[in-house]
């Protein structure tokens, strides 16, 4: 079952894309995309490699501006935002990338606390919360390690901890299980499901259908598929 170009739930969305197109290097990568992510919803974004999943995710947190249409973050058109306003918005959107980027000269705990640091709330003040967060992602004993010393799964969990430390309303994850084994993928998925149960909106870009099937057993989710530059709502065929 596929429904073209109008995806998501009714009502006000925390992130809304309306007739969005995005072109790069003279070619249109995404076309006529409309989607609304309701508060507390859980979405997967899937599609073949190069289909534009990462681009769509970047549009969702203001890292890219659409070449046509509207992107609204918390009911605000991103085009009307100054760069500093976009930065403020990002504090409400946690992002986890496949190729996680850390500040390699800082320890894991300092990297996890980075969103606090840049917002002027220092890690000392968040001491117990930070320790609890590291415990939640299973990195208590790796708190003082440097990012290059972490395994793939540990990096992803550290990135997830960094993404949620500001208690964002939305968590966007781009191929979060791309570089890790199945067991670790399950562990990461469990953490994302837990976040969703706390009321966070979650959008995971992945081409890992097994992960999507595993998630469907744990949480009510929608699967969006990018095909031929357009977004479709995938259904029972998954």
């Amino acid at each position: 079952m596929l429904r073209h170009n109008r995806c998501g739930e009714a009502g006000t969305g925390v992130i809304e894309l309306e007739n969005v197109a995005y072109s790069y290097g003279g070619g249109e990568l995404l076309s006529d995309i409309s989607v609304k992510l309701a508060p507390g919803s859980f979405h997967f974004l899937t599609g073949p490699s190069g289909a534009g999943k990462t681009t769509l995710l970047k549009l969702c947190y203001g890292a890219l501006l659409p070449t046509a249409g509207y992107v609204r973050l918390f009911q605000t058109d991103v085009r009307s935002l100054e760069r500093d306003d976009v930065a403020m918005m990002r504090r409400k959107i946690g992002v986890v990338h496949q190729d996680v980027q850390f500040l390699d000269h800082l320890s894991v705990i300092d990297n996890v606390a980075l969103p606090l640091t840049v917002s002027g709330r220092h890690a000392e003040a968040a001491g117990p919360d930070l320790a609890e967060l590291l415990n939640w992602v299973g990195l208590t004993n790796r708190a003082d390690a440097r990012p290059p010393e972490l395994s793939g799964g540990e990096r992803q969990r550290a990135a997830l901890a960094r993404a949620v430390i500001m208690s964002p309303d939305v968590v966007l994850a781009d191929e979060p299980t791309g570089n890790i084994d199945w067991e670790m993928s399950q562990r990461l998925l469990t953490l994302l499901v837990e976040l969703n149960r706390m009321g966070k909106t979650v959008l995971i870009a992945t081409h890992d259908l097994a992960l999507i099937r595993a998630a469907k057993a744990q949480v009510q989710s929608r699967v969006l598929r990018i095909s031929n530059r357009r977004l479709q709502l995938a259904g029972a065929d998954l």
Partner: protein
Amino acid sequence: MKFDLRTLRALLAGDRHADKVVPPSGFTAQLTLFASGAMAFLAVFALALSLASGRLAQRWGDELARTATIRIVAPEDQRAQQTAAALAVLQTTPGIAQARALSDAEQQALLAPWFGSNLPLDSLPVPRLIEIVASEQGFDATGLRLRLAAEVPGAVLDDHGRWRAPLVSAAQRLRLVGWFVAGLILAAVAAMVTLAANAALAANAQVVAVLRLVGATDGYIAQAFVRRFTVRALIGSAMGVVLGMGAVWLLPSGGDMPSFLTGIGFQGAGWLVPLMLPIISAVVALLATAFAANRALRMLS
């Protein structure tokens, strides 16, 4: 990065957490320190040159402006009479504090460097010289010339203006050149810091990307770099100024016979002028880094 009181206070206060987000740059930091120090060292000498030229111009201007000479060029039998007449004119001329005819011995001493000390003045038609020292308000040279022409035909007034003006002008130009050189050095500091900041931002593009991803504003990112370069310029410049002032202090003094070369240095409150260099360098570095950071962050978006 906006410049308001809050930003300035944040820059001055520093933030050890924010300072940590930019990785230490080691060798680059040492180069920036060295370049700031070297520039400040040179700037101290430029200022010393400028201030010394200013003092020289002032001294030449003051001393020469307050003195003048009258030459009595007259036949031997009229020389004494015309000298007395000239002195009488001078006594009634407003603005003249002192006037006296030089003695034979004094005139001989003046000519000794050229003709030796055994010059027979009596047998040579050497004009009699009258030394004039003007009072504070000075005298009217044109009026005096007219009176002397009427009453003492053999008197020629030389108020030193002919050769004083170019000397004073040269010293004043030299002072301006000194300030200009100091300005150029500060501009070079700005250029050097801008280049270093650009290089640092380019080298830390990934750091900038991570900071943006976690919600850092451009102002926050810029401040982390600005604070670092400002502190480096301040410390480097302070070290350069201390070394420069030490070197100037060690320059040989002319003692009681000051000349231009031996007079290069600072006097009195002049020693405070180079102390402003570190602050000026820091401000220049702050503005240069802020400019470079804002430009680089716009390009990195």
